[in-house]
């Protein structure tokens, strides 16, 4: 392409202005400033490999405002806001932030929300590496409060541990509690491969599985890590050894569908030879269909539970944000944990009557000591401000339309797995060893 004369210069200007417009259009802020308004930013992935979880996470957070702060939904689309929410007379105003699961984009969005839009509290992010970046950023902004969405890398709260970063959902290792034992004792697996995306969250999930499976006597035959952004997972599936009892899949969104399709097409049985990580156990993968029936995995939320706390949450949420099929929006850990995060913010604000003075120290103190009775159980934070959770082994059931049921409940799961993990031993590709 050659640029000639003035027309060329105009072309260059057009590119610059066009790019400017694109950048400007990416932010969706609703900002007006009133004296006692409390601004809350909500951040999740709207693009990239986890774009599918945008609707789930925003809906969960918004439903908490409707249910706990008297808000009204403006509409049912994922970025339709909530009006009229308030805590102790302080109106709550929300701004949405969008990332693509990469830490640099998460940091840029967090900066925009905190420094330009001026939010007081930030809820998010969704993905593991983003959370590590944000916890580090939180240290630079001690007078703001950060409540995690679903990002679940272990080091976010075990080694970074910013004093103003709170995680009510636990980490990816906690979400696997019970699954290693289930594989060893119930399925009688001894030799297992791990296939997952190559970043902190799947490594953390693998650590949680290994933490139970290996001390019990199991062996990990191979760990296969595939970069995020890989479109065709056929060769990843081809690398699974033939002499294993089964494999653990640690993927999310598009990648999950790609692996499950490839494995079942090649004659593999997902129900008997695979276990799922927490993001695998998500209704967004139901497009794979019947082969999924019987698949079990670990989850921090009791998907398919008939417990009244859970069902009233599911019904309440979907009466505001209808889902097709029923239960598919609320039946996701992303909806549930964003709901919990926003509920904690509301409850914390109520305890201090919306007082954000003293660099939000009162609010942060309230959040640290909070006991949250959430749909997935009662939650309390540990000294690193990471929740001690109840974890669940859930299973996909059904023939025509798929759903979930709870197989096992594991109460009192802390981040260290009773001392197995520490601040110096972050999960990595080959760590912990087995």
């Amino acid at each position, binding site marked *: *392409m050659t*640029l000639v004369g003035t027309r*060329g210069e105009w*072309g260059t200007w*057009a*590119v610059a202005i*066009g790019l400017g417009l*694109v950048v400007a259009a990416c932010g969706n802020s609703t900002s007006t400033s009133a004296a006692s308004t409390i601004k809350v930013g909500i951040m999740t992935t709207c*693009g*990239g*490999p986890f*774009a*599918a979880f*945008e*609707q789930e996470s925003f809906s969960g957070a918004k439903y908490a405002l409707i249910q706990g702060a008297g808000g009204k939904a403006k509409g049912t*689309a994922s970025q339709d806001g909530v009006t009229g929410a308030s805590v102790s007379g302080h109106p709550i105003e929300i701004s949405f932030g969008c990332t693509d699961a990469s830490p640099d984009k998460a940091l840029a969005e967090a900066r925009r929300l905190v420094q330009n839009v001026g939010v007081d509290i930030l809820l998010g992010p969704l993905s593991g590496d983003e959370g590590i970046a944000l916890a580090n950023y939180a240290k630079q902004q001690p007078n703001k409060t950060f409540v995690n969405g679903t990002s679940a890398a272990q080091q976010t709260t075990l080694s970074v541990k910013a004093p103003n970063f709170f995680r009510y959902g636990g980490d990816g290792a906690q979400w696997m509690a019970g699954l290693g034992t289930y594989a060893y004792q119930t399925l009688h697996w001894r030799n297992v491969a791990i296939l997952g995306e*190559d970043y902190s969250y799947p490594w953390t999930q693998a650590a949680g599985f290994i933490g139970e499976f290996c001390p019990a006597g199991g062996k990990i035959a191979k760990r296969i*890590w*595939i*970069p995020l*952004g*890989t*479109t*065709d*997972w*056929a*060769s*990843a599936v*081809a*690398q699974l050894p033939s002499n294993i009892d089964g494999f653990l899949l640690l993927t999310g*969104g*598009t990648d*999950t*569908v*790609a692996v499950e*399709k*490839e494995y079942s*097409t*090649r*004659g593999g049985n997902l129900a008997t030879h695979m276990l799922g990580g927490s993001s695998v156990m998500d209704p*967004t*993968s139901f*497009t*794979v*269909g019947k082969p999924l029936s019987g698949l079990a995995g670990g989850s921090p939320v009791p998907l398919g539970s008939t417990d009244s706390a859970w069902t009233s949450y599911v019904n309440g949420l979907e009466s505001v944000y209808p889902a097709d099929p029923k239960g598919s929006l609320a039946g996701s850990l992303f909806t549930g944990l964003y709901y919990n995060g926003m509920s904690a913010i509301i409850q914390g604000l109520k305890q201090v009557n919306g007082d954000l003075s003293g660099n939000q120290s009162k609010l942060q103190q309230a959040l640290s000591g909070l006991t949250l009775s959430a749909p997935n159980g009662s939650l309390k934070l540990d000294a690193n401000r990471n929740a001690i959770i109840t974890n669940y082994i859930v299973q996909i059931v059904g023939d025509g339309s798929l759903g979930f049921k709870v197989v096992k409940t594991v109460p009192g799961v802390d981040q260290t797995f009773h001392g197995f993990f520490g601040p110096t031993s972050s999960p990595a*590709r080959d760590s912990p060893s087995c």
Partner: protein
Amino acid sequence: MIPRRIRAELAHRFAGGLALLVLVVAVAWVLARAFGVVGGTANVPLFIVVTLNGLTLAALYFIVASGFTLIFGLMRVVNMAHGSLYLLGGYIGLRLVEHRVNYWLALVLAALAIGVVGLVMQQVFLRWNQGQDLRQALITIAISVVLADQMIPTFGAAAVAIKAPDGLNSAVRFGLYDIRYPTFRLVVLGLAVLIGVSLWYGIQHTRFGMIIRAGVDDRAMTSALGVNVQAVLAVTFFVGALLAGLGGVLGGTMIALAPGQDASFLLSSLVVVIVGGMGSLAGALFGALALGLVAQLSGVYLPAGYTNFSILLTFALLVFVLAVRPIGLFGRR
């Protein structure tokens, strides 16, 4: 002092030699790992499956990129909405299959629909901007952004997969190392060969193909000879878009459809035609083969601990070709 022309020639030869050397080393390394000469035990079945994966992925890339290169070759339009046409075609195919339309009929209908979308795009937005590369590129970027945003509310943000027709939904056995291989991927490979041969025949041996080739070489002269260039451009854009739509349905069945794949298939089409040479069918073939094989083999055969660089390697391929032969393997000045 060596004259500048000779120095440039020497540098060029050196780069070419280096490229060849890297290629030989890479092939030797992969074979050595596959047959157990280095790095542990031999795993021939894995090598066969991964190579087949590379070939079938290359087939998909070729179908999509041949449309891209056709449009570029004749019209000098870098159609930045090509990936969006791919994804939209896939979604249309998905909806049709969900409504119990026969798979092959759905494939044809979706491809034709995208051909029409492409035709409208060309007639309404690009025709009056002919010859203004930058403006056309910007218009197609705008179209791709609008399409991407509209597809999310219409078709959802979750990954979805098109169900393969019965009988092609499973895996075939080769009777070799007990390998089972997904039948549908082989179908895509076959279709790509069919499309490649038809395009080659159409371009080399028909009157219309002759006009296209003449148009590629000198559009003004072709027009002066009485050829209705506008009609030729319209048909070319229709066919190019149609191929993107066709690829979308096949890709949605072979892998999955999700937001973001528009960008990733545009990117792979760009890489394919830049490696192969803009506007060349043979170039699209070799570019697709190079990209597909590198993408699949590198993920498995890079030394342990470095497999996460497999995505980078496809761009290393691009840099290498550009450094050695800036017009692409089969490009013409």
